């Protein structure tokens, strides 16, 4: 399998080239075009009950599409929003993703939706985060450009700008100021990370953009 990233940083897409018998899992609806001889089936994330619960609670996709090559070919995958796509090799401790960040992954990775707890509900990014483990390739989508940081000291992030982080990092949700300030500023909440590990951020915030658009509706 070869993953070609085109169009970064403004209109990134991933072109996944598959040999016969290889397959890739992709976010529902992400396929933009594909060559002849690619079969599409579906795969539930984390079992039926959890998938249903997740769909019901977060409107996030219930299933992933599984694209399998019957003959050598490709499938092109595009996020719904403009921005950057990023390929990441996963092994060892794995990676934790925010709800909309997953575009595609190889089949030897396990993606488990995880209820992020009450604190996650208030993050504004959906109640579920996704835990990715195993050995394989992951393609992430970010709204805007991607900023990768190595965190060694406490590090504060606006929740709307978060894409992924390593599980060696701990976090807690905080208001940017007091509750009043948080509600009034529209700045949302922040997550304070501690420990040591890598973190991926996006340079724009879709919630921020729609918040700005709303003023003109």
């Amino acid at each position, binding site marked *: 399998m070869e993953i070609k990233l*085109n*169009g970064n940083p*403004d*209109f990134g*897409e991933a072109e996944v080239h598959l040999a016969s018998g290889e397959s890739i899992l992709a*976010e*529902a*609806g*992400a*396929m*933009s*075009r*594909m*060559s*002849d001889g*690619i*079969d*599409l*089936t*579906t795969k539930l994330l984390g079992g039926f009950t959890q998938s249903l619960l997740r769909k019901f609670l977060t409107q996030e*996709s*219930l*299933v992933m*599409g599984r694209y399998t090559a019957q003959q050598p070919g490709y499938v092109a995958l*595009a*996020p*719904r*929003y*403009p921005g950057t796509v990023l390929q990441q090799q996963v092994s060892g401790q794995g990676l934790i993703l925010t709800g909309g960040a997953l575009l595609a992954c190889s089949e030897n990775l396990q993606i488990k939706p995880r209820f992020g707890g009450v604190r996650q509900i208030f993050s504004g990014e959906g109640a579920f985060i996704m835990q990715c483990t195993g050995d394989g390739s992951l393609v992430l989508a970010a709204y805007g450009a991607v900023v990768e940081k190595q965190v060694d000291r406490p590090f504060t992030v606006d929740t709307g700008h978060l894409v992924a982080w390593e599980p060696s990092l701990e976090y807690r949700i905080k208001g940017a100021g007091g509750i009043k300030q948080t509600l009034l500023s529209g700045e949302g909440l922040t997550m304070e990370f501690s420990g040591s590990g890598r973190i991926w951020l996006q340079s724009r915030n*879709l*919630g921020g953009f*729609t918040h700005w*658009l*709303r003023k003109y*509706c």
Partner: protein
Amino acid sequence: MNVDILHQGLFATAEVTLAPGEQFVSESGALYRGSPNLNIETSSRALGGGGILSGLKRAMFARESFFMSTYASRDGSPASFGLSPTLPGEMQVVQLDGAVNWICAGGSYVGSGTGVTIDTQYQGLVKGLLGGGNLMFMKTSGTGPMLVSGFGRLIEIEVEGSLTIDNGHLVAFQDSLQFSVTKAAKGWMASFFSGEMFACRFTGKGKLIAQSHSPTAFGGLLGPRLPER
């Protein structure tokens, strides 16, 4: 007649220069600047003929504009003007050679030269409704330059054999290609749950232009986050 794409990429724009006597047609609203000697006539009639009915068909069924503007030089010197689409993304000049016609889908047509005839082409109820809700496509024939735009990057593909494309990513294709609207997966359940449902399957030999991103997908993402009007 000269058609150039400036600032190709995120915010591409087209610059058209007309010699005296030449004409160019675009969807109304695409014009954002013009030289002082530029003559603009706006009507529901395009160069290919047709009256109010052809405008209605364009607007109601092909996601194009009801009014078309025709540009020409008002005096004996060349006139120039700029055209831009609504969405951010690339633009491309397609040269029609009189032999192969091009079909534009989903509002991707921006404008064309005098020698190009534009018309709406009925897709049939099944293809139209299932293939993205456009009952009609814009059919261009004749010779001369034709301008298309896309959301994101434009990707030109030489189709040989077959290609499956999500209708939200379809920009234009040569009518030497045949297409059918099919389930994206083999089974109905997989088609539905994979989020793809229907896709366009092109067969034969010819060129196709795709856009990297889908306006309907982005619109569908933004819409629920905005208050109702």
